[in-house]
């Protein structure tokens, strides 16, 4: 049933969206302090402006309803869809003022890419970007990876009460780890804090050994850790991970990518003492099988090109990109342009498939998700077993995901629906890219990378690409991160509101 909006619905939506936007003003204090510490007075002014805009815009919206206003499930989905856009808009203000973007649209593109942990970028002259701006770009990964709602919940930013649970569920997370949603949000941050601290320490030491200056070592280590653990893909250098030329850096970041793509429920289970869950879990098995099969494909594909001098080099480059693609990170140790014409069709196909499949649900990764692929595979096996069993036999199937669960038609239908939605979006984006004149293969690569929030690129994503394609990729990154449903609810609610208005006229 299509239900129109009442005034109190709009008030509640504006209030919660405003609170989430206002939280961006608080977060901008970090790059502001970075700018002060580094003596970057121009960027400091950029963040002072950003804080002013975010605080004013957020607080103005938040006045629309009193604190603790009840939020229905539908309204929570709308708030989530709008908040990701509104937060990206205010996040783009200081980036736009940096002078490193072709215009506000390019800065908005980077803000969406950062928050959705995609990693595609339109920044210009990245190697000379101020520390404050790099800090902000990577913080966007950190906040977006955990979820804007989770970030706000964990500091209890005016979200206690009626709206907290609805908002948490609306942010593409269908499972609560702990009974209390606040505790769940804090647990997610606890896991993140441990990994980020550990990654930063190890990579700082690695950078110091490589000869990097101390302060720079720590900053680069923190940014690389955040970008990999939150499966983002931004880097402070235009050469991305290739800049470091370090096997230690690559080994540590691969572990961080795998940790980032692990379902937070799995982290919780293992950290609570259930050591065997990671081996029994359908999603973990599906992801491991996926990476193992594609690692063979990329090994064969890259070796056949004869571009690399030894099989070891093939494996080092191939696996880094495969895990980067599968986890939705987008860090790279090869040049972009090679995917179009240098690394061969087989490696290209392996990377596109890895990006399309994605990591685990309830993690920072994007894509179709290993759980859904595992469920669909189970569904196919079930159908085959039904077909060969005697007519009188009742064939049932179960799967293990934290618990032993019967494979129901509802679960399968939901997995297949999202599989189809991702597939349609991947292909549509590819066709739009081709319509703009790009080769279809490269356009598909870029479309999958945007929708699955990966960030690997064949070189199409650049400040020079057409405005229409920038908008398409922004929509794909937004829709992919929210797993479509919140976006559809927003569109359906807008249509319902228009119909109700027309009915009254």
């Amino acid at each position: 049933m299509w239900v129109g909006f009442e005034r109190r619905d709009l008030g509640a939506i504006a209030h919660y969206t405003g609170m989430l936007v206002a939280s961006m003003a608080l977060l901008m204090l970090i790059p502001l302090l970075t700018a002060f510490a580094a003596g970057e007075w121009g960027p400091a002014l950029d963040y002072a402006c950003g804080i002013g805009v975010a605080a004013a815009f957020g607080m103005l919206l938040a006045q629309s309803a009193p604190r603790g206003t009840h939020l229905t499930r539908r309204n929570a989905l709308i708030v989530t869809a709008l908040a990701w856009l509104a937060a990206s808009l205010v996040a783009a203000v200081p980036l736009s003022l940096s002078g490193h973007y072709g215009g506000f649209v390019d800065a908005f593109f980077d803000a969406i890419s950062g928050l959705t942990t995609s990693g595609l970028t339109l920044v210009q002259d990245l190697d000379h970007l101020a520390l404050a701006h790099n800090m902000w770009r990577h913080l966007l990964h950190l906040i977006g990876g955990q979820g804007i709602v989770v970030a706000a919940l964990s500091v209890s930013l005016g979200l206690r009460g009626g709206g907290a649970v609805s908002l948490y569920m609306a942010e593409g997370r269908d499972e609560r780890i702990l009974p209390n949603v606040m505790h769940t949000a804090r647990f997610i941050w606890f896991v993140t804090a441990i990994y980020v601290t550990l990654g930063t320490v190890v990579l700082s030491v690695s950078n110091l050994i490589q000869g990097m200056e101390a302060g720079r070592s720590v900053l680069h280590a923190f940014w690389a850790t955040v970008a990999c653990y939150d499966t983002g893909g931004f880097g402070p250098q235009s050469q991305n991970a290739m800049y470091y030329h370090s096997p230690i850096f690559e080994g540590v970041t691969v572990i961080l990518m795998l940790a980032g793509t692990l379902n937070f429920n799995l982290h919780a289970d293992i950290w609570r003492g259930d050591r065997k869950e990671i081996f029994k879990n359908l999603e973990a098995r599906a992801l491991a099988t996926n990476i193992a099969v594609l690692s063979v494909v990329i090994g064969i594909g890259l070796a056949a090109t004869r571009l690399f001098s030894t099989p070891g080099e093939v494996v080092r480059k191939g696996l880094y990109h495969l895990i980067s693609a599968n986890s939705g990170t987008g860090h790279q140790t090869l040049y972009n342009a090679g995917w179009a014409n240098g690394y061969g069709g087989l490696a290209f196909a392996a990377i596109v498939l890895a990006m399309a499949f994605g990591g685990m649900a309830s993690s920072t990764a994007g894509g179709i998700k290993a759980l859904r692929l595992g469920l669909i595979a189970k569904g196919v096996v079930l159908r085959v077993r039904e077909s060969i069993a005697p007519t009188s036999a009742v064939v049932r199937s179960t799967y293990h995901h934290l618990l032993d669960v019967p494979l129901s038609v509802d679960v399968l239908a939901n997995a297949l629906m999202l599989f189809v939605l991702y597939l349609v979006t991947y292909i549509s984006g590819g066709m739009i890219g081709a319509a703009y004149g790009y080769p279809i293969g490269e356009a598909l690569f870029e479309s999958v990378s945007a929708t699955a929030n990966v960030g690997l690129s064949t070189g199409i994503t650049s400040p020079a690409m057409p405005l229409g394609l920038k908008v398409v990729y922004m929509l794909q990154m937004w829709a992919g991160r929210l797993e479509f449903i919140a976006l559809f609810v927003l569109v359906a609610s807008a249509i319902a509101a228009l119909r109700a208005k027309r009915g009254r006229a």
Partner: protein
Amino acid sequence: MELRFHNPYRGWLAGLLIEIAVFAAFIIVVVALALAAARIS
């Protein structure tokens, strides 16, 4: 930090080390697979 349900802090360090060990073992397995594939081709 209030995390009392099933005492999630109990053994978090062991859990973390197990995760890292599983990731490292998995990387070794896929490196071996990819290396075998690269040598064959």
